[in-house]
């Protein structure tokens, strides 16, 4: 290969204890489409941020067209023709399509920019998604998720002065149906054929196999395999991605729960969900396919907004700590005790001694690493914050614990400790409903519901809880 458009060498990025990138080297040349696959949290989005200029690696170098780039940032990347479609929505929902185009292309200003922006985006939309039917004066917030994703993709391919050379697509088809996805992939192929470069990230493996010229597999922040596309099969990819370390310590002990009572149930579209006393129920499937929504529904159905409940029916462990887990102004102690105040209070007055004692107990039990529980919650590392949220939930008397991908940012050692606690608690009769994006965790469950497009599509129990089965259920439809 001649000169790469962009080359990242030996990049290391960590967020606290999480090694998001561990010595990653990746080069993309003109006229190739690199497929990037890996489990959730493998570091795919992180390498994208590095290439895009949004994130400076703590170690490693970046070079473009053969020359090393010392001061690399968003504007430098854009000037080199590098564009990105981000995994999460990155349009302004209150603006129209062409106004978003204006925000993206800083040099589009001046009188009559609307006409130019309209031209730019519509040409691109027409090219990528012929017959798309999206008018450029519609507000993005009014568009369906699929339409938004189409606009984002078209925006990346649009040309308003600086022609795109490298386009990074981070799970671009997650909300597109098969025909739209095919339109996009066809455009990618055309773009690559005309000398452009593309990095394509997707969990839908056959898309990658059909489109990429080279496939890179990432796992736990490293590149573990890299081969031309025709040297891969779907099965091979799944195997290479699989992050389950099937050590003995992780094996589930098969238990007979048939005679236990059902403690929580929920019906909706798809299969009904129910969990028995002492059971660990997993919610699996690709991220964002309705698992969190299900947990919220379960939670709302068993809690009251007006009057406090003496005996809590469920408790909740948040995965998105910032949004619905941590109280940032509070100490570790108060963060821990908020859900079990009723047990620690007499006539509404919190018994400070009992509170401190209970907190001390849990601090020892799951080893929260802080010298003093009166320290600010935010002074804890991410993993330790997560432990506090676990402790908060487990310290309640609630018979059911709902967990929303609670291991984000938790390091391996801590995970093992928490798994052990969950097993013990389940043994004592507590029920867990556990959404996880990590296959290893899903495989710890007694029973697993696989979600796709907001509904439960499969129920796996006992020995059927295996990675292949879960992946197969998650991808069914696309792969068929």
């Amino acid at each position, binding site marked *: 290969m001649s000169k790469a458009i962009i080359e990242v060498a030996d990049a290391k990025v960590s967020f606290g204890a999480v090694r998001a990138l561990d010595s990653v080297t990746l080069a993309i040349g003109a006229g190739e489409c690199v497929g990037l696959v890996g489990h959730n949290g493998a570091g795919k989005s992180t390498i994208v941020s590095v290439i895009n200029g949004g994130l400076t690696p703590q170690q490693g170098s970046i070079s473009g067209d053969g020359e090393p780039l010392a001061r690399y940032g968003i504007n430098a990347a854009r000037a080199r023709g590098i564009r990105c479609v981000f995994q999460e929505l990155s349009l302004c929902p209150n603006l129209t399509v062409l106004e978003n185009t204006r925000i993206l292309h800083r040099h589009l200003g001046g009188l009559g920019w609307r006409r130019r922006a309209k031209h730019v985006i519509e040409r691109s939309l027409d090219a990528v998604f012929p017959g798309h039917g999206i008018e450029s004066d519609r507000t993005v917030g009014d568009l369906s998720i699929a339409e938004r994703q189409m606009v984002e993709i078209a925006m990346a391919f649009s040309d308003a002065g600086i022609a795109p050379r490298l386009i990074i697509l981070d799970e671009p088809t997650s909300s597109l149906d098969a025909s739209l996805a095919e339109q996009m992939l066809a455009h990618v192929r055309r773009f690559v054929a005309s000398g452009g470069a593309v990095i394509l990230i997707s969990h839908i493996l056959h898309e990658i196999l059909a489109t990429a010229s080279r496939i890179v597999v990432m796992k736990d922040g490293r590149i573990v395999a890299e081969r031309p596309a025709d040297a891969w099969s779907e099965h091979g990819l799944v195997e290479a991605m699989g992050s389950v370390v099937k050590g003995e310590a992780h094996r589930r002990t098969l238990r007979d729960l048939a005679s236990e009572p059902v403690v929580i149930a929920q019906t909706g579209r798809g299969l009904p969900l129910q969990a028995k006393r002492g059971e660990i129920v997993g919610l699996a499937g690709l991220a964002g396919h309705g698992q969190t929504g299900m947990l919220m529904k379960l939670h709302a159905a068993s809690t009251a907004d007006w009057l406090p409940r003496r005996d809590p029916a469920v408790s909740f462990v948040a995965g998105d700590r910032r*949004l619905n887990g941590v109280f940032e102004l509070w100490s570790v102690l108060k963060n821990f005790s908020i859900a079990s105040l009723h047990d620690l209070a007499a006539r509404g007055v919190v018994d400070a001694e009992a509170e401190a004692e209970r907190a001390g107990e849990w601090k020892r039990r799951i080893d929260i690493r802080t010298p003093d529980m009166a320290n600010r919650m935010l002074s804890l590392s991410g993993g330790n914050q997560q432990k506090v949220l676990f402790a908060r939930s487990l310290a309640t008397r609630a018979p059911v614990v709902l967990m929303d991908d609670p291991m984000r940012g938790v390091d391996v050692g801590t995970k093992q400790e928490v798994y052990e606690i969950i097993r013990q608690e389940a043994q004592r009769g507590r029920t867990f409903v556990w959404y996880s994006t990590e296959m290893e965790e899903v495989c710890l469950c007694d029973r697993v519901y696989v979600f796709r497009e907001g509904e439960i599509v499969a129920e796996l129990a006992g020995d059927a809880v295996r990675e292949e089965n879960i992946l197969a259920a998650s991808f069914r439809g696309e792969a068929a």
Partner: protein
Amino acid sequence: MRIVDRISRAPWIWSWFAAFLVWFATIMVTGGASTLGLSQAALTFAAFSIIVGIGQMFVITLGPGNIDLSIPATMTLAGTVALKLMDVDNAMILPGLMTAILIGIGVGLSNYALIKALRIPPIIATLSMSFIIQSAAIWTNRGLRIKPPSFLADFTTSTTLGVPNVSLVALVISLAAWFLLEKTVYGRWISAIGQSMPAARMAGVPVDGTRFVTYVLSAVLASLAGYLLACFSGGAALNMGTEYLLMSIAVVVLGGTAVAGGDSNVPGIWGASLFMFLVVSMLNTYGLGAGIRLIMTGLIIISVIMLAGGRQPSAR
């Protein structure tokens, strides 16, 4: 050093510091001769701001966008109705107080009904409500000033061991508020809601119930302040709450309570209320006009928030 460091990080210290400075500057004019008189006056009049300020603080603690603009009208209505009911009769003191409190409960209920059922933003809901309450106050008594029962008039205007009785009442309410905030489950709940409503809900906090109680609490404290103020000043007037609109917000903010919610502060309200009274007295004493007085007040509010805003709040 540690103690100095800790104290300088306490959010309420700035308002106390400012109040002390202004107090000192004022008594220096008379070479210290006015110390007792000024201190007593400050304690007396700060008491009313403190009582309404505490109510407003509970509401502001609920998080961004929560503010009670119906406080002045509630004060007026409670004062008017209670004094009319008591009609200078010492035997009616308790029924009068009960009526004032019932009015507070009614106002709080209506406020939260508008906020919750009609999804009207709290600012506009409480404002609209305040117009209706004001009309109700006019309608009940057409602004006639009925004298308070003699016992109440004496009680509110006299002192115990040199400390004004109304400030003792404010002290009791403050201690109760402090206790509620720091020691009870309810205090934890409002602080949690103010920091993050979704997180509070997921932690099992009864969010609607707590918010409802808080709006009721604010209105009840406002009516209590109206009741006391009407007795103190010799009768309810239709405009008697007016200046407590901005005052109630200002003392909360100056007192170090986070406007973004979740972090409230009772001692700070004392400092800020004393300060707000003393700064007017000082500027009056120095013979400064209304214009300068307003400008200085504004600049001081902004400087206090700039000073307090740049620091990391300490762990609670």
